[in-house]
């Protein structure tokens, strides 16, 4: 039976395909996150065009900033404002302060996350320290700006957004060359 002989090979091809599919899930998942704000993922750098965005002066949205350092990090990291109230469509700036409290040069990566996740697609950053890594000398401190605006398309009734930045220690990852030291 010629069909019989080919069955195992066809099945093996299915196996190889599914192994590949497992890895293909990684970029697919990333895309899904970017599109739907799954996991509170915020988008990449956004270009603000004042001609296209008309601020909605009729309402205010509260944006609360949360700052944390992850396990193994001892840097001082805080938001200068705590929270701000902005009109949707209006470009705003928030400042963050960071200081390396250790005795060695460290590389940090800020990971943003936004709650509720359904608001992530309406939150745009035109400038953010989270797009690059921070390399700080021992004791060095830095004022880091973040410019953003909330899209006027944000559904009404949603008047509070929380944005968290968590600093991760990526000194080892940077040294391994697995990610480029951007700074």
């Amino acid at each position, binding site marked *: 039976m010629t069909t019989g002989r080919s069955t195992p090979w066809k099945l093996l091809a299915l196996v190889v395909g599914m192994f590949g599919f497992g890895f293909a899930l990684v970029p697919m998942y990333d895309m899904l996150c970017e599109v739907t704000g799954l996991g509170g993922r915020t988008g990449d750098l956004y270009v603000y065009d004042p001609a296209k965005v008309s601020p909605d002066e009729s309402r205010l949205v509260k944006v609360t900033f949360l700052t944390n350092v992850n396990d193994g990090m001892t840097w001082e990291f805080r938001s200068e404002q705590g929270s701000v109230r902005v009109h949707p469509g209006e470009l705003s700036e928030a400042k963050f302060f960071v200081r390396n409290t250790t005795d060695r040069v460290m590389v940090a990566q800020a990971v943003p996350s936004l709650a509720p996740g359904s608001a992530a697609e309406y939150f745009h950053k035109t400038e953010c320290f989270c797009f690059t890594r921070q390399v700080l000398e021992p004791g060095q401190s830095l004022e880091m700006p973040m410019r953003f605006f909330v899209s006027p398309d944000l559904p009404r009734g949603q008047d509070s957004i*929380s944005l968290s930045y968590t600093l991760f220690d990526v000194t080892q990852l940077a040294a391994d060359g697995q990610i480029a030291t951007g700074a």
Partner: protein
Amino acid sequence: MNLLMRVLVGVSIAGCASGVWADDLNLTPGATAISHDQYGLHMLVLYICIAIGIVVFSVMGYSMYTHRKSQGAVAAHFHDNTRLEILWTIIPALILVGMAYPATVTLIKMYDTGGEDLIVEVRGYQWKWQYKYLDEDHKNALSFFSNLSTSQDEIHNRAPKGEFYLLEVDKPLVIPTKKKVRFLITGNDVIHAFSVPDFGIKRDAIPGILNDVWAYVDEPGVYRGQCSELCGKDHGFMPIVVNAVPEDEYNTWYAKEQAAYAEREKMASQTFTAEQLMTLGEQVYTTNCVACHQANGQGVPPVFPALAGSKIATGDRAEHIHRVYSGVAGTAMQAFGTQLNAAEIAAVVHYERHSWGNNANDVTQPIDVLNLVSAQ
């Protein structure tokens, strides 16, 4: 047997649709509108399941009793019945729609994203919770850790267990009643889950990711929950206790806590006697270190090293302070520099260097910690 009776009573009461169960047999209706909805849904599905179960198992039981060879039953030969098969596909589908509708309504309610009266950040650590109160005016922020307060003696059966064994903490989360409180949940190391059953809340605390849930509590009370995602060794020992109090009581508590916090920060500029350091150090050690390094300093090698006689706890003090302050990456040893103030770190270092036979013969003051940190 008392237990058996309770089970029987519980099950039979459930059967007569009165909906009253003993507390430890069923979900509690809880303290929020959402948790009441959940309870209602739970009972609805439970009764549907019981009803279907009764029908199916009765038919089965009747058949097993009647259609027995020993009763002289002769086997029929039918092997399908299209009408019947269509019927028992469609009827369950309709029942499911009846269940899905109220579930959807409740879920949409839970996803309400409207504004809140208070934001509390909840951060899971191995193995404790940190609560941060976020005010618009950043100066008012308050942050503290909440640790299991059940003693190791109770856990190891050397002392009688108290009423709230494993469900009690040194500092509970305090929230005002009749206010919409939003919990922003995240994790510091591995994934934990913040759960308060009476509020109908359970959400994972994931490092780097912010999750949000909210609660509007009507009645003052003490509400208890436990970490609900395996997070390592002491996953079973990081309870959540929420104290819901009327607003004015909440405000008093908040002001007092802030004052206490400021007072604690002042300690960093003081100088202590060796005795004071030992006393404070023991407190800090019992709260933060004892789960891994054990009360006798012997640890659980090789994962949790012994401190008694250890090179670090008897050797270079700067290295010792550094370990406590910065932690050891990739292990359960956290960077306590972000959790304790300079006085607490100095005290615990001093305590570790002078306990369980260790005798480093030095005195560690808050200023030593601060110098080491700012020297850089």
